[in-house]
């Protein structure tokens, strides 16, 4: 049920992000979602791409440190309160959202959010039980 995300360590330097997008463009990798977390010294770029293998290799070949993490792609109703309803479900559990970001494409009338939970298995269980649909890797790439 989980989706693989690629993360890259970047120092806070101007032009660094465009170098990464350049490497991926050169490798013919399509970026489907992206989020950047940063501190004053460094940042972590998280990516959902169409070809993890190709992307990770291209980045490593260019001397970058690459991590791979399982994250959860969740369908969120694309209307006011959509995300709120979802987070309400998790509020009373001991599941924490480490971070989240939006997916570029829609599934009809739903938006897709990428979630990094501290306990993905538990989160998937709770959300599914509450009628939220989790998007599989196959379906995500087909959107």
């Amino acid at each position, binding site marked *: 049920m989980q989706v693989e*995300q690629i*993360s890259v*360590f*970047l*120092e806070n330097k101007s032009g660094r992000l465009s170098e990464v997008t350049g490497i991926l463009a050169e490798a013919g990798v399509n970026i489907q979602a992206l989020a950047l*977390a*940063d*501190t004053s*010294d*460094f940042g*972590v770029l*998280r990516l959902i791409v169409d070809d993890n293998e190709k992307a990770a290799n291209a980045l490593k070949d260019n*001397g*970058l*440190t*690459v*991590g791979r*993490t399982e994250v959860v792609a969740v369908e969120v109703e694309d209307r006011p309160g959509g995300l709120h309803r979802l987070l309400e479900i998790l509020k009373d559990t001991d599941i924490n959202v*480490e*971070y989240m970001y939006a997916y570029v494409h829609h599934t009809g009338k739903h938006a897709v959010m990428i979630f*990094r939970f501290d306990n993905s298995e538990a989160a998937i269980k709770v959300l599914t039980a509450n009628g939220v649909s989790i998007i599989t890797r196959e379906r995500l790439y087909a959107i």
Partner: protein
Amino acid sequence: MIYNMEYETMPREALEAIQLRRLQATVERVYANVAFYREKFKEAGISPTDIRTLDDLRRLPYTTKQDLRDNYPYGMFAVPMDHVVRIHASSGTTGQPTVVGYTARDIQTWAQLMARALMAGGANRGDIIHNAYGYGLFTGGLGVHYGAELLGVSVIPVSGGNTRRQVMIMKDFGPTIITATPSYSLHLAEVCEEMGVSFKDLKFKFGIFGAEPWSETMRGEIERKLNLTAVDIYGLSEVMGPGVAIECKEAKNGLHIFEDHFIPEIVDPATLEPLPYGSVGELVFTTITKEAFPVVRYRTRDICSLNPEPCICGRTHLRMSRVTGRSDDMLIIRGVNVFPSQIESVLIDTEGVTPHYQLVVDREGALDVLTVKVEIGEQLFSDEVKKLQATEKRISKNIKELLGVTAKVRLVEPKAIARSEGKAQRVVDNRKL
């Protein structure tokens, strides 16, 4: 097995009596025969008769590598050239070479000490030594060679290089002991593997490795790959060559310094104050039997500590720890001495990896600020910023606890630290003092 039971296991009191007698003779000799020492002693207001106890050694001035260079080539020799039977020289990679000389008796002493060292490392009659230290101006090859012959073991003077032929010799001649630099031994292991030769099928029992700093991790790797017991040997041409100190195969925990020939001291590299046993500092040697090239309080620049604890092997001579760095690399941060090697061991202890790192020192106002840059590898990396920040904090906390110095730790991208010839530049000091 102990080669010279009488001297190597001598009670400390008797050993110190011999040291004092030999020290007094050495000081008299250099004062009479070497202008450099005579002038230095006079400047310090010391004459040879002032040396009445071993503690008086501390009143004598230090000798540095630069002093040896200033007296290039023969200015430090204490005998006329017609008494010198051998000349060696350091490679001079860090400046002008240093030339050292030996009388016939010096060569005998050296052979005797190398025989002791080889036996401490496991060699005995009937063994065959594959001596892969370079023969030539470098003291390694010939030092081992003479010791081996004196001990009565067979020696194959294979020297360095032509590794494939070395593998053939190891296979066909059946050597049981290898003497080499640690890095070359690992190279040998690689070439063996390429050639389809397994160390398991060779006859090696022991290896005696030195002439460059190495770590316990490397010992494990060498013992595994070469299928033998590895011990550490220490020496430098300015003091004699290999065989100044040797690890015994029984304890494999520190190198016995042959104290009936050399007096070691550990000093603070910044203040030059002598430090007590157990403290980490710069190793200083005074030779007390050398004829052609005696040195008085020679600063080796090697960083280690001295251990006076009795050893299970029965030797009474002090043990020096592995050399962990060079005093040239030492930084003084707000009055605290910091060696890059200490930061490195904190990194290994904290994260279990040896990342590339760099120490950057700046002066902000009147304060020194130390930043430790650590290249991030896959082991340290996380997709969560807070975990990365926790890593930085954890390293910083351990540096503070273990070294007593405040450091800001910054994770940087791989290859962010400049390298010259594959070696990372460990220290950048931006202070303008």
